[in-house]
């Protein structure tokens, strides 16, 4: 017990040091509330994703696909779809199958006497740039960009990237009828008609319901990008 005084002093110093540390770093413990979990947190029913750096481990390989070229047919409207379109992602944010989306946009273009061509855009997942790049490839100079989550833009080759002819930002509100009209309107721009834009729709509660899902889908799309390949023909015969 001889060492006890020394020990007491050591402990006292240590306690003071700890207290000072705590004061200076400001990390007063917050685990001491009367509601703090007595026996730990228990199991979480939603698994943690922390540590994962991708949503889909696998990346699709498009190196065997033909690179998209600039079209010459003045009737041609190019539809540029997202990198995960019809592969990793099969349905839009609101659950419309992407096969039906593309079928309706093409039908709309054809109904107005124009010619659709579908490419897949692997160098950007930004819908504004997707639409602009599609427009630049199109013989007509009119293009449509469609992200896998359903967000769509109609653009023209000489517009600013973030400008557009028509923008449909609220993917969850899109219907197949809207997609068909988008095709029709794109074709009408080619014909140089005075086009009545498709009326805007608005649901102020879309953001709380869908924004997180939209972010996850966009990440899934972006991780499939392959900028070296650029743009490929998506519906090659």
């Amino acid at each position, binding site marked *: 017990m001889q060492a006890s005084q020394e020990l007491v002093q050591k402990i006292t110093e240590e306690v003071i040091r700890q207290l000072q540390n705590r004061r200076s770093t400001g990390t007063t413990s917050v685990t001491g509330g009367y509601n703090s979990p007595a026996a730990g947190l228990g199991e979480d029913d939603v698994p943690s994703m922390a540590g994962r750096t991708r949503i889909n481990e696998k990346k699709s390989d498009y190196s065997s696909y033909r690179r998209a070229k600039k079209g010459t047919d003045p009737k041609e409207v190019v539809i540029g779809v997202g990198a995960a379109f019809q592969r990793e992602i099969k349905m839009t944010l609101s659950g419309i199958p992407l096969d039906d989306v593309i079928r309706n946009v093409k039908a709309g273009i054809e109904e107005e006497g124009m010619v659709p061509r579908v490419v897949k855009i692997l160098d950007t997942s930004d819908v504004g740039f997707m639409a602009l790049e599609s427009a630049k490839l199109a013989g007509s100079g009119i293009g449509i960009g469609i992200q896998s989550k359903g967000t769509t833009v109609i653009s023209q080759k*000489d*517009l*600013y*990237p973030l400008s557009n002819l028509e923008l449909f930002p609220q993917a969850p509100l899109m219907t197949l009828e809207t997609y068909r009209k988008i095709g029709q309107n794109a074709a009408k721009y080619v014909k140089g008609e005075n086009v009545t834009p498709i009326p805007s729709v608005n649901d102020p509660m879309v953001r709380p319901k869908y924004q997180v899902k939209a972010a996850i889908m966009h990440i899934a799309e972006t991780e499939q990008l392959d900028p070296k390949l650029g743009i490929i023909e998506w519906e090659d015969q």
Partner: protein
Amino acid sequence: MQYPLGEHERDRITSRTGKKLDQLTLDEVMKGHVAPDDIKISAEMLRAQGEVAEQAGNAPMKKNFERAAELTNVPDEVILGMYNKLRPHRATKSELVLMAQELLEKYKAPNCAKLVLEAAEVYEKRGILLPEGQAGTGNR
């Protein structure tokens, strides 16, 4: 000058074209004596606002007013074109360097020229220039 200049320095305020505030009346507008350029700010007023910002302890804001003062004589279309060239992937390095030169020599805008020149170097390092030879393919 004492802020707000519109209250304390009214008589000293002139527009870019040299019009005094009491010449910018509805009467004058109706007589057709007020052109769009008459409602633009002068370089002197911008420098004065820069002084105000500096006294309020905001050095970056003063620099902005200095650049703005230099840009008062750059025509609207030119200024829009320059902004667009500064966007990513819109210009080659030599285009930006020439733009800096134009700002310095034609418009006597050394602070703007410096900003553009720095941009040219940073853009080169970060790979967001157009390759030489592709000049003028930017939008518009």
